[in-house]
């Protein structure tokens, strides 16, 4: 390789290394901010509060590893059906009432739970392998 080639190659290396570092750092940051729940068996249960048909504080984020037990409670001021997609678990909730979900995290991926009639997403459930 002549000097010109070397220079270009060196340039590419620098760019790629920079991109790799950037991504590793930024995705590391993402992970920690998304983890709101370690999800061990017997851990305190997360409550999603629904006010005027919307989740208080935005869409709740829950992260588990495969095999752990997913547990959360929905306190709602409206009557609707809570649908945990992917796992396809549906539970009715009355206005002023609450429902509890308790199931093993068997499917990997990112799934949403929504108030079915309102089409309002209330939870993003992440299950890591």
């Amino acid at each position, binding site marked *: 390789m002549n000097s010109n080639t070397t220079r270009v190659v060196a340039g590419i290396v620098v760019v790629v290394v920079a991109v790799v570092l950037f*991504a*590793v750092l930024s995705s590391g940051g993402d992970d920690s901010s998304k983890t709101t729940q370690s999800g061990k068996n017997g851990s305190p249960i997360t409550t999603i509060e629904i006010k005027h048909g919307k989740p208080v504080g935005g869409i709740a984020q829950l992260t588990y590893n495969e095999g752990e037990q997913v547990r959360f409670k929905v306190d709602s001021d409206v009557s609707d059906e809570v649908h945990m997609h992917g796992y396809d678990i549906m539970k009715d909730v009355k206005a002023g009432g609450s429902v509890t979900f308790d199931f093993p995290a068997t499917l990997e991926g990112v799934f949403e739970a929504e108030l079915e009639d309102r*089409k309002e997403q209330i939870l993003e459930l992440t299950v890591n392998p």
Partner: protein
Amino acid sequence: MSFFLPLAHALVARKDLPVPAWLFAWGASLVLIVSFFALSAGWRKPRFEDEKWRPLSERFSRALLSLPVQVLCGAAGVLLLGFSIYAGLHGTEAPDRNFALTFIFVTAWLGFPFFSVVFGDVFRPFNPWRAVGRAVGGAFALVAGQRSAHLRYPERLGRWPAAIGLLAVVWLEVVYGASGGVAVGLSPHACAVAALVYSFYTLAMMALFGVEKWCETGEIFSVYFGMFSQLGGFGVKDGRLGRRLPLAASTHWASLPGSAAVVIASIASTSFDGAQEGALKDAIVQTFEWLAETGLNLTTSLRLADTIFMAICFVGVGLVYMIGVRGMSTVRGAPPLRELRRGFAHTLIPIAFAYLVAHYFSLFVFQEQAQFGYLLSDPLGTATTDLFGTASNGIDFKLLSANAIWYVQVGALVVGHVAGLTLAHDRAITYWGDYRQAARSQYWMLAVMVAFTCFGLYLLSVANA
């Protein structure tokens, strides 16, 4: 002021997990090593300019290309399109329970590229608009005793109508559909209306310019699926089916103006769909809030914000390609810029395909279970029909593990990267003849490819929509 963003996909009950950082780093490193290797191990004579076409058995070829088979395939295409429109208009408005959306945006829109890359242009015989156009043309010839006359297609337009159409299709799905005010996605009714409007438009264009001419230049689906079929190992030549060197047919694909725009539109729209809930999410939310504060209604603001960023993706991807082309034009002995711009467009087709696989492979596998399960038995989603006894089948999300999906995603990007580099090196040898100058020009394309591949990896590592 802050608003709730009605972000959600029409069909997807599940999203992919982001590619973990270590795999991202490995993928990017692999790309780098492969690229180094490509720099040093270039060949000195073009190998892909000739597709080395060899005919398949005459009987097989004649049977597969016979008129009855053509009519049958065309009729199947028309029937499926007609049925999708019917289901969209008369079926349930729940996007995931209606045959129309999954069939059009998953089975056809993703399925044809996947199959075309292996088998060649499989869409052509099933193209419903081509079938109708040919039937009408044939009937006209029979009655009038002469073939119908057409306007001259303005050659300068080339494939631009298809490039813009491609952006429009994706826009309909991911921008218009994702922002219906509530998180329902594109409604089956809107999808059916769009299909009807497009059918009238494209049949009118076929009447004006001729069926084959329009399929080559403006018919979105023919051009888009046809582009991917150029990578495939099978093709028809002089009415005969044959095998060819994979990738090779693509070297002659970009002969029309606007071809580069089609590939760029493909890469850009996949990037946007991947980035809108990940890398670009914050920027989109900010733009949306800013637009909403100016008094626009929420749905309009969101669509506008998404549209702006989709346009930015198109311009950005185009710009990266143009920088590569500009760079190459500075190498001594380079052909004119116009020629270069068109001459390397096909080298991005493998990248476009890799993006498609990386972003939609899992969606395709999962959603096809719905397509051939409950959507086939209960296409209108009325919960009262069960044609094949599969109406209550669900989707088995255990079919693919997160690890399997990650490896397919990263693998697709790396393979696409290698294929793109291969085609680019080959084309450079054709233009420059001299091996040293060709290699020098390829530092530029190599940078372009590394940029696209690492960007693709980055999108996957942040989040995938």
